[in-house]
């Protein structure tokens, strides 16, 4: 059925208000976007890696989740979702359950790119029927904006502060979506919040309703960590896509597909200039940073185009 935002927003919210995430947080937008793709009649078990999302969405005795929810630790959301799914399979086999349940794990980039990567990789390889969603805000925001392997080069983070000798994070961002795709799982994709959420919705729907393991990487801006006014979230997401810093693509059973190609690929500055974490890159004498950032984006974009041919 064709996507209709109007229809989709009529569905009951599965993440209610009253959670304690920051004003303008991308994480809850990602969660709402993904859960909207669930058929209302299907139940879900949500797993959460320790993260901003986790500590804000289930502060005893208040859960923001309408569905069953389990948090156990930082680095094990993959295994946790897999464990619940394994129990589901056996209880279903034994005739103890007849409802349909879907298994969705949410982790930040710290819990996904870094400390939870092993558990995620294991769960993907074992083939659990689950979706792992990374809401990628490019640093450890829960503990106070420390760099992760998802933090882009030159970003000012509290463990890669811009100093007189080192200009922010020295390393480039890890390409996690490609790493997960290399597990040869049925479905992997990356998306963010643009226009009417069609891209996110359709990817979430495919991820949830494709049998077997699926992975969604959702760029989810963090106003505090990226240093911008919360109201500008949509603008930043659009810039990320139009500069090809965060391309929208999916990999279905090993086939790469580009979902959006900007009519005019914007220079990377258009994304960087909106955020305080990259402010130093625009100082006189730092032109080389912008140049290197542009070169990196160009090279990654060309690689992606080649893969999607």
């Amino acid at each position, binding site marked *: 059925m064709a996507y209709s935002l109007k229809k989709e927003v009529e569905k009951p919210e599965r993440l209610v208000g009253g959670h304690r995430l920051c004003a303008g947080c991308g994480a809850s937008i990602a969660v709402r976007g993904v859960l909207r793709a669930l058929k209302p009649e299907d139940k879900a*078990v949500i797993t959460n890696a320790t993260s901003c999302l986790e500590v804000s969405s289930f*502060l005893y005795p208040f859960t923001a989740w309408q569905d*069953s929810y389990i948090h156990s*630790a930082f680095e*094990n959301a993959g295994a*946790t979702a897999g464990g619940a799914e*394994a129990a589901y399979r056996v209880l279903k086999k034994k005739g103890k359950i007849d409802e349909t349940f879907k298994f969705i794990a949410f982790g930040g980039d710290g819990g996904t790119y870094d400390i939870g990567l092993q*558990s995620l990789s*294991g769960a993907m390889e074992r083939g659990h029927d689950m979706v792992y969603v990374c809401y990628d805000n490019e640093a450890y925001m829960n503990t106070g904006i420390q760099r992760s392997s998802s933090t882009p080069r030159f970003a000012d983070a509290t463990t890669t502060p811009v100093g007189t000798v080192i200009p922010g994070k020295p390393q480039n961002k890890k390409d996690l979506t490609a790493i997960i795709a290399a597990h040869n799982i049925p479905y992997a994709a990356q998306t963010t919040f643009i226009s009417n959420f069609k891209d996110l919705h359709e990817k979430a729907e495919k991820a949830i309703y494709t049998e077997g393991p699926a992975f969604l990487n959702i760029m989810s801006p963090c106003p505090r960590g990226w240093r911008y006014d919360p109201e500008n979230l949509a603008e930043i997401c659009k810039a990320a896509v139009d500069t090809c810093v965060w391309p929208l693509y999916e990999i279905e059973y090993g086939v790469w597909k580009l979902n959006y190609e900007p009519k005019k690929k914007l220079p990377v500055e258009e994304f960087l200039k909106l955020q305080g974490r990259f402010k130093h890159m625009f100082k006189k004498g730092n032109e080389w940073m912008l140049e290197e950032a542009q070169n990196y984006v160009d090279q990654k974009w060309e690689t992606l185009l080649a893969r999607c041919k």
Partner: protein
Amino acid sequence: MTIRDRLSGNEAVAYAMKQINPDVMGAFPITPSTEIPQYFATYVSNGEVDTEFVAVESEHSAMSTCIAAQAAGGRAITATSSCGMALMWELLYVASSARLPVTMALVNRALTGPININNDHSDSMGARDSGWIQIYSETNQEAYDNFIQAMPIGENKEVRLPVMVCQDGFITSHAVENIELLEDEKVKEFVGEYCPENYLLKKENPLAVGPYDISNYYMEHKKQQAEAMKNAKPVILSVAKKFEELSGRSYGLFEEVEMDDAEYALVIIGSSAGTAKEAIRRLRKEGKKVGLIKIRVFRPFPMEELAKALGHVKAVAVMDKAESFSACGGPLFAEVRSALYDLDHRPKAINYVYGLGGRDICVEDFAYIYDQLDEIVKTGKTGETYRHIGQRELGGGR
């Protein structure tokens, strides 16, 4: 009635698992527990159980799998040893605080530094405060019997705590000995169905597990956990009683050997208790009033019961198969000596750390320890309380 067989400790535990037919097993290989998931995987492959066997990529994920599966409404088991359990450490606390009665077969092995694959209790003793019920086994028979009793204990509504059933790596896990097995139906009936009140996959209402607990709630939840551990004691005894009716084999919080008139006693855990029993048999023939207490249940700790059982002895040697580097004694010593504190007439107490990393202890060593107790009573001088036995020393030593 019962089935006579000869099995290693690992085979025995795997066989108990098969008879129980749990819902999910999450496991990762580590010596010396590896055989348990291996045997179990064979049962899975041959369709002898319905279990979803999740061969995870680490022990951390093994325990994560078990926690989620148990929360989902299934019965979850694992087996591990040593560093494997150390890697689970974070999640041991999660399982117990979320009140999920996961069952673990722990095949005790020394913790690394340096690496060593042989037996001691440093792994489980390191996790003694993680909120798990800990039951120790002397023999393959006890490992089997204890594993069958674990679920009725842990799943009891007044308890709801995870249980680890420990046996000594290689010493019992890889040693074939005679064993009496129960019929499948009897085990199934004894263990029963797992019927939690709330679980993730429940149709009627959702369940949220693992909150962020601010200071205003955390302590109340810890108090609940502490109470649950207290509740476990009578439950352990009543499950043991039912098990005795089924099997004829009797279990308590600890086993007393020749304690009625004993003047000198050992307190010990695990397989070496059997070796000490042989020493007692020989020394009793010489008219020496020696006895021992073998701790079966270390968590909850049988504090009052131990004080009562040791009230009449003159001297006691507490045997620790784990270091705690307190510079004053091992973990069992600390707790046993604390138990003795309330007695009006306390026995003299010394500690022996023994058997680390598979260092053998034999009948003669126990005879020597009873001699030492005799010496302490005769001279009235306890001397050094924190002792080690079995290591080489300049100028000899025991």
